[in-house]
């Protein structure tokens, strides 16, 4: 029974996470009330900027090869863009959501 011990490629794990998250996204987004579709777009914008983790890795590389300088440069610009999005996206969402009020009776 040697084949059972065979290691699974990490890619398969990532793919599983991805596929399951697509389904989670499908159900969660259908439950969003249409009145909040604009905040939904701005908050998805903000969270997709979690790509900032890639920017941080690129900015932080050690200067060991000729490519490192390039990586830092690209990473730095990506970091600025992602941070504009993170701060802008979450704050503008907060600003919008603060305006939704119930009827005062």
């Amino acid at each position, binding site marked *: 029974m040697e084949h059972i011990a065979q290691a699974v490629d990490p890619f398969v794990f990532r793919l599983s996470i991805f596929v399951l998250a697509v389904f989670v996204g499908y159900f969660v987004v259908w439950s969003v009330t249409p009145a909040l579709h604009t905040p939904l777009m701005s908050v998805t914008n903000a969270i997709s900027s979690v790509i900032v983790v*890639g*920017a941080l890795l690129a900015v932080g590389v050690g200067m060991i090869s000729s490519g490192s300088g390039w990586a830092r440069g690209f990473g730095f610009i990506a970091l600025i863009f992602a941070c504009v999005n993170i701060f802008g996206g979450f704050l503008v969402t907060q600003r919008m*959501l603060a305006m939704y*009020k119930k009827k005062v009776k």
Partner: protein
Amino acid sequence: MNANLAAVLYLVAGVLFILSLRGLSSPASSRQGNFLGMIGMAIAIVTTLASHPPADGIAWLLVVLGVAIGGSVGAVIARRVPMTSMPELVAAFHSLVGMAAVLVAAGAFYAPEAFDIGKPGDIHTQSLVEMSLGVAIGALTFTGSVIAFLKLSARMSGAPIILPARHLVNIALAIALVACIVGLVLTGNAIYFWLITIIALVLGVLMIIPIGGADMPVVISMLNSYSGWAAAGIGFTLGNSALIITGALVGSSGAILSYIMCHAMNRSFISVILGGFGGETAAAAGGSGEQKPAKLGSADDAAFIMKNASKVIIVPGYGMAVAQAQHALREMADLLKKEGVEVKYAIHPVAGRMPGHMNVLLAEANVPYDEVFELEDINSEFAQADIAFVIGANDVTNPAAEEDKTSPIYGMPVLQVWKAGTVMFIKRSLASGYAGIDNPLFYRDNTMMLLGDAKKVTENIVKGM
């Protein structure tokens, strides 16, 4: 930091992002949801800095500088942007996600050792595939969103731009893109990396320019979706679960919104993407061109009739947003309520230039969200309403969508305002709407046209009361 601990923390961040979207199921829980999203983002950033600390002082300096510059720019924009400009702001933000995806992939390509995906010139094949997909979708999102931004902010005409043989050009570019991806995977040569980027950038422009202004709600949702898939592609390269989960969430969110928008316009996604709609105006309208009489009314007439009504349904459209009439409208509704008139708002899914845009504008004008209703919830109530007050909307109230089988918008769900006792239209002119279709409602007996700027007319009605 231990790699397993880091992986668990990324998972926690991903779960918090799911909860932040979950919070949007009602306005009451939405603020808490947004807060959870912020916590998730903070966890992801701190985890990255702790598990892969920047290599030296300069790197730390760059990190602090980047966060400070980007963060302050973002915060200022978030505070200053007027709510009417939300569509173009969202388009601009999409473009930044797209560009960030391209730049992160470029960083990973030039310093693969920092991303644990191999050595320079010898990157794992699988990582190259994931990276090239992330770059291609990211670059496409970037230029596509820039064009959408220019169209939405009226810096560029909303009319579709149709290039000759555009389908052939697009197919040729798509084939070239696939060839370059294969080239990159086989050789790992930087030339292919940049060719992919350039081709995808061009493709992004060509994809969005033929799409007309009326289809922008679909385009902006679609680009939302693309920015998610781009993030997911990079997530696979980095093996980062927070990024993969988020990419999948955002990708499916944008796809669902595109579907809802297409459904609300009774158009297929493919026909929107192929573009060209909304450009051919009067000529395609097929109207006989004969001048029919419309009943014009004054603001005082409108004020008098509405004060004596018992139920008024207000239908706002993009024209209200352009004229910034939402505050005057709220004032009018308040006066009516004081007179004992029941006031409700009816919103069509494609009113405005992005999903949910009208709801935000009404919320900004302090309209309580429980007075605002979606199409399917309020359509049955028009028959009991004395007055349907249509302000800056047109195509979404066109009865031709239900009655005239030859109409280009036949089959599109519309607000049945004609069932109300009296229909009041506030419009700048009797011209057709974005779809270029004449609205027969303008010429009916129980319709009253109030021509003029939406804000001025509404203010005059308020005075008249």
